[in-house]
């Protein structure tokens, strides 16, 4: 049989399959779709239902997140470490992409592509679109809760440490640090996990650009359980601290960190007349959830004021180990 013969026979066969014409009943039935009652009863507004469900789920998630009281839980208890004192470079970390996380991403992508391919017809339907919308809203809500300075929040405890001077001679009534040229300073603060899942603090983020005038150079912790009633300065004195160790916080849980800083050549020393101040407004921490690491900047509960000479600026960056 030639191609032409096949095509000709096919045309004839298809023509035979064609019904004569639409009868009056079908015509009436089809043209009736524009009447509101038919449209209302014949179709279910799946997309509207799905959108309503999505909005409800998102609202519950957001309200739960916003209204959930932050109840301080037991502090993280890393294993005891030898008492070495805190020195610059301790507790520094950089966010990395773990192999396990990359493998997980790969599996998710492969499975996702497979599901999408398998359901490529179903995905065109209203319910699937609604479900996708719900998923996107949930993802955005979760991702939003882990935006910059969102996953971790500052706790209510802030303790000044080395170099801090409560009474400033011959100056405004501002307590400030007077570490002196190249001196160190320290402070401690409580931080809380304000997100919905457990989060691990890996360390202080290593700065990715040169630091002038003031730099945060180390993260530590007290080798003994914190007891603020015994004198605040004691627990943030670098000589009495040990390097920070990663700690995992459950949602709402708090822990106490101590930060070691180093001043540049413009810092005023004890006894100097106060001029201006400069200092870190936030502490960049490397945090991790399910293998994914990023830098979360936690605001300091109190301003860390390092007394500086007016109009002075370092020309050489502060070395960070």
């Amino acid at each position, binding site marked *: 049989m030639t191609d032409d013969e*096949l095509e000709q026979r096919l045309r004839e*066969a298809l023509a035979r399959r*064609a019904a004569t014409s639409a009868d009056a009943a079908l015509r009436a039935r089809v043209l009736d779709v524009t009447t509101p009652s038919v449209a209302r009863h014949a179709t279910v507004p799946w997309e509207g239902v799905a959108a309503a469900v999505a909005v409800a789920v998102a609202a519950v998630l957001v309200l739960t997140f916003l209204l959930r009281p932050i109840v301080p839980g037991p502090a993280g208890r890393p294993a005891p470490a030898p008492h070495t004192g805190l020195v610059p470079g301790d507790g520094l970390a950089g966010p990395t992409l773990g192999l396990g996380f990359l493998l997980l991403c790969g599996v998710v992508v492969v499975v996702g592509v497979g599901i999408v391919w398998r359901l490529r017809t179903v995905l065109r339907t209203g319910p699937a679109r609604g479900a996708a919308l719900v998923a996107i809203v949930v993802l955005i809500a979760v991702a939003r809760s882990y935006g910059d300075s969102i996953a971790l929040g500052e706790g209510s405890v802030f303790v000044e440490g080395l170099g801090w001077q409560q009474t400033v001679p011959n100056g405004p009534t501002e307590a400030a640090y007077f570490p002196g040229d190249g001196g160190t300073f320290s402070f401690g603060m409580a931080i809380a996990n304000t997100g919905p899942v457990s989060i691990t603090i890996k360390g202080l983020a290593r700065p990715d650009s040169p630091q002038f005038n003031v730099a945060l150079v180390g993260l530590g912790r007290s080798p003994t359980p914190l007891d603020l009633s015994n004198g605040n300065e004691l627990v943030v004195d670098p000589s009495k601290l040990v390097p920070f160790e990663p700690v995992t916080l459950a949602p709402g849980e708090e822990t106490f960190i101590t930060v070691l800083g180093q001043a540049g050549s413009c810092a005023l020393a004890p006894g100097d007349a106060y001029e201006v101040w400069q200092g870190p407004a936030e502490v960049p921490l490397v945090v991790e959830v399910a293998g994914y690491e990023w830098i979360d900047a936690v605001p300091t509960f109190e301003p860390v004021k390092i007394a500086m000479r007016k109009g002075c600026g370092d020309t050489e960056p502060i070395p960070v180990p």
Partner: protein
Amino acid sequence: MLASRAVEAATEDRAAVFARLTDRSLDRHYRLAAVILGDPLEAEDAVHDAALVAWRGFAGLRDLDRFEAWFGRILVNGCRDRLRARRRRPVIASIALLGDLDNGASPRVSVADVADRDELDRAFATLDPDHAVTVALRYYLDLTVAEIADRMGIPEGTVKSRLHHGLRRLRRAVERDAEQPR
């Protein structure tokens, strides 16, 4: 109140236009559905469902001159989905063919003609839904490759590929059937 009446009037106008456009091409669409599905009753349901979908989206159709192609695309997609669903459940019979035979549509139909019709009909029914729709648009509606691509929302290369494989499968089925002793 006035605004509500204005909306009502606009909806009525829209419904009238929709009804006019649908009515004008209803026969063609119904026949195409019957060709693709091979079942006049299911074709009626397919056309009705397509009309429902079309009416829901009619407000978004900017160019009314494209109505027939647009409606046809909805219908073809619906027919294809029905074929896919049908493949997941047993095939009962080719009602169109039985209807022809019952009515004695052509007194000159010979046994060989009926057999040929059987072969092609059976072969067409076994085509993949995408292939069946493409073949129907090409050899029933006589659409060009470009028109089929536009109607189905797929590249022209895909249309050619589907036609090629569809025809090859039909030829094999017909030849295999012809080799069997009658």
